[in-house]
Structures are given as structure tokens and as C-alpha cells.
């Protein structure tokens, strides 16, 4: 067994990286995979509370790196699940420089024979913490919200991931509000894919149960039948496993999104492969074009007459 390492990142903070990591870890475990998740947000540890494992921490990743603990000693097993789910917590009293990218690679190499998937919860930003999270990645999942600053930061992160030869990554759009999309007051999934031009691997609706489950330390993916977001994370896990899972309607209104996708030449069932179509159809945006060419003017006037 040699695990696949998936890093969950975003650039901007607060878009749902930790939520996604916890829920994907649970979803993988429920699908019968052995998972370990690593909290790479050193100094701002959170994955432990979202998973509800905060009371069981003895050692953390810095203890492993600095030799105070063996890897096994720092792996906290989630006893709610039949299949193995482990957390390697971040240190809370240290900062990002306590771990280097090569430390992360070493820890992951040691972890790989023990599980099927390693999920790394990246901190916000593009500095050391992000580099640490990216270094061991076989695959990168970028979380964004349908909102300008989040999409802009995601674009920057995608550029950095590509520069590190880890790209282009797969996209999860989190906190989609179908009624706002319908009103035209929220970027649609199609808009976001169009701008970022990477493969979509999941759409997660805004869901109050995410907060409720974070309150309780019991990820929504544990009860995918009760929570649309929990179900969405389960679907993402299955897509990451290579299964062909159709994009679900986030609610009645999200058939609107499907119509949107269909209007662009692909059905909701094959968004993954179809987003190339969207790219090809995409209009180049023109920044500061000086004036229209004569040719274009002629074409336009000809078009008006016919």
C-alpha cells in the first residue's frame, strides 16, 4: 500500500479548507479507504476540533519532526468509524517555520505504507505553510467560494501550483447559494470554471448543517442523507477515487445550473470532461485594447446588414 497524497488549499482563508479536509477524510473512510489527515496549519490548529478529536491530542507534527514522538504515537484514530481514519494534528504553540517542505515529504513517505489516502489541510496564504502543504502532494484540490476575492486568490494559487509542477489541480466550489445564482447575484459554477479553467471536482452548497456539525465535532459527511453539503463531499471523494459521479442538483433550483451547463454544450453528467468545451468557447477578455481594427468594423457592419 502506498498512499496518494491530496493537498487541500485555497489561498484565501475561511473558504472551507478545513471543513473540506475533515469531510473528505470521513467520506473516504466511509467508502472503505484508510485515511490519514495532516493539519499543516501550524499555530492555528483547527482540524482537530472540526473532527471532534481535540481531547485526544498528545503529540503533534512538530513532535514527529523534532523526534520527540514516533509517527504512530502522533496518529489519533477516530473511533466512530469502522475504517481507519487518523489525524496528525498541528502544533498550536509553534509557527510554520518549525516544519520544512522536506520534513513534510519525509512524514508523508513514512505514512504512505500505512494508509490509502493522506489529506493535507493547508493554511491560508502563499508562504511557508502553503509550501509545506504542497511539497508532498500528488494531487491538489483548490477550494474557492463563488465570490471575487476568493476566485482571484484561487487563480494565484493555481499559478503557483503549476509553477511547482503539481498542477493544475482540481476545483471545489464551496458555499454555493442556488437562489442567489439564479437571481444573478452570485457567480455561477459555470462562471467560476470559465475564469479558472481547471477541472471541477465538486459543488458544495451553503448548508447550516456545516456549522452545526462543526459545533459538535461531527462532520456532515458522517450523515450524508441529512446534509446536502455532506452528500456533496461524499460525491467529491468518489470523484477523487476516479468514479464517474454526476453533479447533483444542489436543490430544486440547481437544475438551473445544469441547464446552464447544458447550454454550454455539455450535460451535467460530464462536466468534468466537458469543461474544455467551455474553455474553447470562452471569450478573450480585452484589457486596454486601443481601437477596433478596420477588419472588425467591416465585419460588424456587414453582419448588421445581413
Amino acid at each position: 500500500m502506498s498512499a496518494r497524497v491530496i493537498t487541500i488549499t485555497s489561498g484565501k482563508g475561511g473558504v472551507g479548507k478545513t471543513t473540506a479536509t475533515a469531510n473528505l477524510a470521513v467520506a473516504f473512510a466511509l467508502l472503505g479507504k484508510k485515511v490519514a489527515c495532516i493539519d499543516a496549519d501550524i499555530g492555528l490548529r483547527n482540524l482537530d476540533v472540526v473532527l471532534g478529536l481535540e481531547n485526544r491530542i498528545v503529540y503533534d507534527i512538530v513532535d514527529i519532526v523534532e523526534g520527540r514522538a514516533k509517527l504512530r504515537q502522533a496518529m489519533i484514530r477516530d473511533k466512530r468509524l469502522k475504517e481507519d481514519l487518523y489525524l496528525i494534528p498541528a502544533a498550536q504553540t509553534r509557527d510554520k517555520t518549525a516544519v520544512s517542505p522536506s520534513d513534510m515529504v519525509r512524514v508523508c513517505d513514512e505514512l504512505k505504507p500505512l494508509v490509502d489516502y493522506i489529506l493535507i489541510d493547508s493554511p491560508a496564504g502563499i508562504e511557508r505553510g502553503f509550501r509545506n502543504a504542497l511539497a508532498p502532494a500528488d494531487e491538489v484540490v483548490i477550494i474557492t467560494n463563488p465570490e471575487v476575492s476568493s476566485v482571484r486568490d484561487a487563480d494565484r494559487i493555481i499559478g503557483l501550483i503549476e509553477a511547482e509542477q503539481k498542477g493544475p489541480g482540481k476545483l471545489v466550489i464551496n458555499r454555493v447559494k442556488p437562489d442567489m445564482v439564479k437571481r444573478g447575484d452570485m457567480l455561477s459554477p459555470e462562471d467560476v470554471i470559465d475564469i479558472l479553467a481547471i477541472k471541477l471536482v465538486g459543488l458544495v452548497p451553503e448548508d447550516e448543517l456545516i456549522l452545526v456539525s462543526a459545533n459538535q465535532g461531527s462532520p456532515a459527511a458522517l450523515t450524508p442523507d441529512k446534509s446536502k453539503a455532506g452528500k456533496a463531499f461524499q460525491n467529491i471523494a468518489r470523484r477523487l477515487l476516479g468514479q464517474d459521479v454526476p453533479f447533483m442538483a444542489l436543490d430544486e433550483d440547481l437544475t438551473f445550473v445544469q441547464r446552464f451547463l447544458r447550454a454550454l454544450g455539455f450535460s451535467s453528467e460530464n462536466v468534468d470532461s466537458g469543461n474544455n468545451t467551455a474553455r474553447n468557447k470562452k471569450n478573450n477578455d480585452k484589457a486596454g485594447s486601443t481601437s477596433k481594427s478596420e477588419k472588425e468594423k467591416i465585419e460588424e457592419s456587414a453582419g448588421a446588414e445581413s
Partner: protein
Amino acid sequence: MSSLFDRMFGGRKPTSSQVAKERLQLVLVHDRSNLTPAQVAAMKDEILEIIARYVDFDREEVEIALTSSDRENTLRAEIPIRPTSGRRRRPVTPAPLSDA
């Protein structure tokens, strides 16, 4: 982009998400190229200055645009050259296919 809006929405006021998309596309052109709008303008001026040393063109007809699509930046320039009387292309004599 506004012409696209016109086509799609018949000149109606764009929704806030359309505005968001348009603004994002513009800002990302600069983010992706690492150039500020002022630097892009300066680059255009310099390009035209060099071209003007060799050919005659009307500045009004020039179109130079930095575009971004599919994660790649392209600099496109279309500069219609003014025909100048007197300076004609030399007639081209076709090269013989062989010496024979």
C-alpha cells in the same frame, strides 16, 4: 465584453454576478502577467515607437491587447499598415526549380 452583454441581455443592466465576472477577468489579466495597467500602457507605447521606425500606420487603427484565456496570456497586436505611394514591393522573380 459589453458587446457580449448586449448580445446576451439585450442592453439590460448587467447583474452583479456579470459585473463580478467581468471585473475578475480584467484583474486576472494583470495578475497572471505580473503587469500593472500602467506597465501595459508603457509597453504598448514602446512597441509602437519601434514599429513606427519601419512602417507608417494610423494610431487610431491599432489594436494591442493583452488577453488571458485558458490560463495563458497572449499579447495580440493588429496594426494595419498605411499604403505608401512610391514605395512598392519589388516584383518577385520566381526562383528556378533546378539549374537545368
